[in-house]
């Protein structure tokens, strides 16, 4: 326990990392939800649409926790000499690059790229994502300037993600309310 607790960063760092994880997950979920809104308005009332949005937000919250959980575990296996601020910077870049790779994988369905099948395409972007993450992680470990730039970015992202967190809590309350009634 002593070993793992010594590897733990301050709670504020983890909370900020969680907020970073929320950003891409929520932006994507909300965009996809809004894409479906047109068809929903034809046959659903406002209550139904809000309820569906609540479920989408709750799922997005769970996914953010999932992503955060992976990064949290990853942060525990980093050497002790890696500072908390650097862990946050690394976590941020991993979350953002992985999200970008995920978006590209999803867009394959829309772009209809025929020269490579879906599974190979997926592995391609997973590979590219991992490579980019490795390169930037290396750069973060070497460059204090990049680290401080990323931490400044985290400050901005955190502020925006607090809005999503508030929406998630509201969504969770709506979902719970609907179970009770």
């Amino acid at each position, binding site marked *: 326990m002593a070993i793992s607790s010594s590897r733990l960063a301050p709670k504020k760092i983890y909370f900020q990392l969680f907020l970073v994880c929320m950003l891409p997950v929520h932006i994507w979920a909300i965009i996809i939800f809004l894409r479906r809104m047109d068809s929903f308005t034809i046959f659903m009332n406002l209550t139904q649409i809000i309820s*569906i949005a609540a479920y*989408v937000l709750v799922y997005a919250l769970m996914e953010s926790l999932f992503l955060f959980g992976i990064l949290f575990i990853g942060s525990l296996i980093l050497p002790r000499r890696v500072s908390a601020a650097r862990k946050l910077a690394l976590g941020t870049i991993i979350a953002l690059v992985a*999200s970008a790779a995920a978006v590209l994988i999803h867009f394959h369905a829309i772009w209809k790229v025929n020269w490579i099948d879906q*599974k190979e395409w997926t592995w391609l972007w997973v590979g590219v994502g991992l490579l980019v993450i490795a390169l930037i992680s290396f750069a973060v470990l070497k460059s204090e300037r990049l680290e401080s730039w990323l931490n400044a970015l985290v400050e901005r992202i955190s502020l925006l993600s607090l809005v999503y967190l508030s929406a998630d809590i509201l969504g969770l309350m709506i979902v719970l309310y609907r*179970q009770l009634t």
Partner: protein
Amino acid sequence: MSIDPGKLSRREFLKLLTLLPLIGTSSKIDFFGRTFASHPSPNQPGADNTRPNFIILLFDTLSAQHLSLHGYSRQTTPNLARFAEHATVFHQHYAAGNFTLPGTASLLTSAYPWTHRGLHVLGTVKEEFAVKNLFSELADDYFIQTYTHNMLVMSLFQQFQKNLDKLVLPHELAILNEPLTDYLFPEDYYASFWGERVYRGSGADLPGSLFLSFRPLFAEDFHPFTPESLTEKYGELFPRGLPNNSLGLFFKLEDAIDWIQTQAPALPQPFLGYYHLLPPHEPYKTRHDFVDRFDDEWRPTLKPESTFSLGMPQDELNRRRRWYDEYIAYVDAEFGRLIDNLERNGALKNTYLILTSDHGQLFERGIHGHVTSTLYHPLLHIPLLISGPGHREGVDVTTPTSCIDVLPTVLHLAGKPSPEWAQGQILPTFGGPHATPERSLFALEAKNNPKMAPLQIGSLAMIKNGHKIVGYFGFGSGRDGYELYDLQNDPEEMDDLYQDRNSLAQEMKTELDTKLQQENRDFTEG
């Protein structure tokens, strides 16, 4: 333990919580909190054996045009024919819509789609029908149990659930059900189903999940319960794959049939069991003993291309038709097994067994399926067979009837009057008037029309005097217009008579247009 309710401590409150399961068993609250009415079992004192039971068995997407019982070339339904020997067979029975929601909602509410407004593939009916339906009318006296493989029907069940004694969830009779809704949020099915659907993605729709929705891509590699592994496990039994609803529910029809036959003798009396089973809805996953059964030389009549054609080549349509027919043969065999077992265990002594469907299926004019704006005969012509206590001989009814007639008929047989909101009438031979061909029957397709707006885009069919007129409106020039067919002399709808028979065409067109205007006026004023 003495507890003063006025001074309940936290510890005492927690102790009381442990007694909750006892309350659950004593007041018949099931796992999901739905309350059971206290109906006695068949042999218990107080069981009402004077009222008949009802089993409504609905096979989704079962077109009467594909049943050998109704003259189809392929021998798809020998067991239905056997059942028909002591049942009433309605040879001209029609759905009120061409896909699940309008068809099923009209059956259960005795209202046409323009009234109940279940117009959309994944829609719901108007709230007022939560207490205007078959279940609400029987709820006081009957134990009501429902089951479906079809998630779209679950939306209706949720709307009607206050009158259901037992709503059996889809996963309970499934081999695998991927959606979480069934397990996590069964009480809020509609919103949670949609929320999950948005999040997981479906078909061409991108998933709302960035990371977790990759599972299908990696399914073969990582997921132990993928369709691929199911295919491996059940591959010999189902060489074309396991029956499923295309939304992650994998099942065997045998399991539902086995379950129904055990329920019927055990349910509290009197009961209504409404079982909406998915086969022969696509994907067509027939059992091994029916695979290639109809790999024959027979080819259907080649029909003119529709203006709504999806451009599917005729060879592909023929192949899908064959697979569909082979799936029907499997459904028929399972139905035969069910009636044999129900008769053997005496469950039909005081029970009406009603077999029907919600809509048909199309394999012609460049169109496959039922997600179409057309209303051709194979889409609307559905089976209706009813056997009841004491039925010894088959009866054939050839006058046209509609799915909206089922509710008044069931109520009549249950000794209840038809509610004034019911638009159907009691079926002929079951106490209803001798239906005449002059009666106008309707079917509507309006999935592109907003739910709560006058009908401005869609297709409306009217069947009367052996003729059918279809009006297409709101689709734009090239598609808007009318078609008229003589169903008696041209059941394949080969010759559009709209231009030729001017007086009849004008007469039927006027009635169709007037009906549409009247319903739109009623809707606007209402």
